[in-house]
């Protein structure tokens, strides 16, 4: 953590050190903004990850759809959402997993759960 950033419980702060750690992951995610790259990911996820030089640990996080693990490995949340789009996993489903809840359990905690 840099001089001005103090830790906050249950919270990942995306700073430059974390961004450097997640550089390959975030570059791969950014590529998913192109429709052809989304198709390439869906067609052969392993080849796609290899093309972006992910480490074996990073590949495992994606294989396991371990979204909190990906955040801790330096994937920025807004970039992680692009994997969500390519794998059909909505933000709220990712969030439920990060909270350790089922999707329905998570929805039950919301004020107006129809606003999705």
């Amino acid at each position, binding site marked *: 953590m840099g001089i*001005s950033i103090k830790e906050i419980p249950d919270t990942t702060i995306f700073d430059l050190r974390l*961004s450097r750690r997640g550089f390959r992951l975030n570059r791969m995610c950014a590529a998913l903004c192109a429709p052809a790259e989304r198709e390439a990911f869906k067609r052969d996820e392993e080849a796609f990850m290899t093309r972006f030089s992910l480490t074996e640990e990073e590949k495992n996080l994606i294989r396991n759809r371990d979204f909190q693990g990906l955040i801790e490995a330096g994937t920025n949340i807004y970039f992680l*959402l692009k994997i969500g789009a390519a794998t059909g996993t909505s933000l709220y489903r990712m969030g439920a997993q*990060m909270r350790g809840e089922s999707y329905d359990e998570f929805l039950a905690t*919301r004020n107006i759960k129809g606003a999705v």
Partner: protein
Amino acid sequence: MPSRIVAGIGLSHVPSVGPVVDRGRQAEPAWKPLFDAYVPVREWLQRLKPEVAIVVYNDHGADFTFEKYPTFALGAADRYRIADEGFGTRALPEVPGDAELSIHLCESLVAQEFDLTVCQEMGVEHGFLVPMNLCFPHTSSGWPVKCVPLQVNVVQHPLPTARRCYRLGQALRRAVETHAGDLKVVILGTGGMSHQLQGKRFGYMNEAFDQWFLDRLEQDPEALAEITHHRIMEEAGAEAVELIMWLTMRGALPRSAKRVHRHYYAPMTTGMGLIAFEG
């Protein structure tokens, strides 16, 4: 006649609003409270008849990535394309720019020691487009105002301080007032309010903080500009730090600006705030 800033609006840019607009779901019970709040805002804007909107927003990995990441990036183009942020490109018309005003803003802001990244190409996504959908809906003839996008790093720490963002707003006001274009300009400060999108605190909101922020923004923005990133993130969630962009909007308006609209709705995972000032 010099140009002038006639209004400022602070508002959230929640991405799910985009598909709701595109699919015509605004009247559904879960969404109606949000969209109803913008009806009087649009009527007010139609009376003001602004020609240009300066939109202070952040990109979400659609057009700016971490190979090179500017702190403040100002658009200087005649048009801005609609960017694909991973969900497909929304069927929206290109956004018209005002390159002449952009050039003047760049010259004035750099002279005032805000050393911007100047962008002759930019793609805009929900951070920019959702506020436009709510305030300036497009028609078959396009968008009703020209735009100047101002992209702020609120994603990769270190971020600019809230005070720096406020001062940027003050500098923007001086820049607009030295532009001899006789334009009426609105400034939008977007993002927030309380939300966190990762970790065990996913879905965290804090309405009391959000209402306090709206109060202070109206009544004592100078003091609010002293707020730290840590305090915002601790009390309102890590992603709530986008709120520093509302201070750029507020800095561009006089201390005495009249607050004309205010609304708050927090259905799912983000406190969706709205506050509008005239003056």
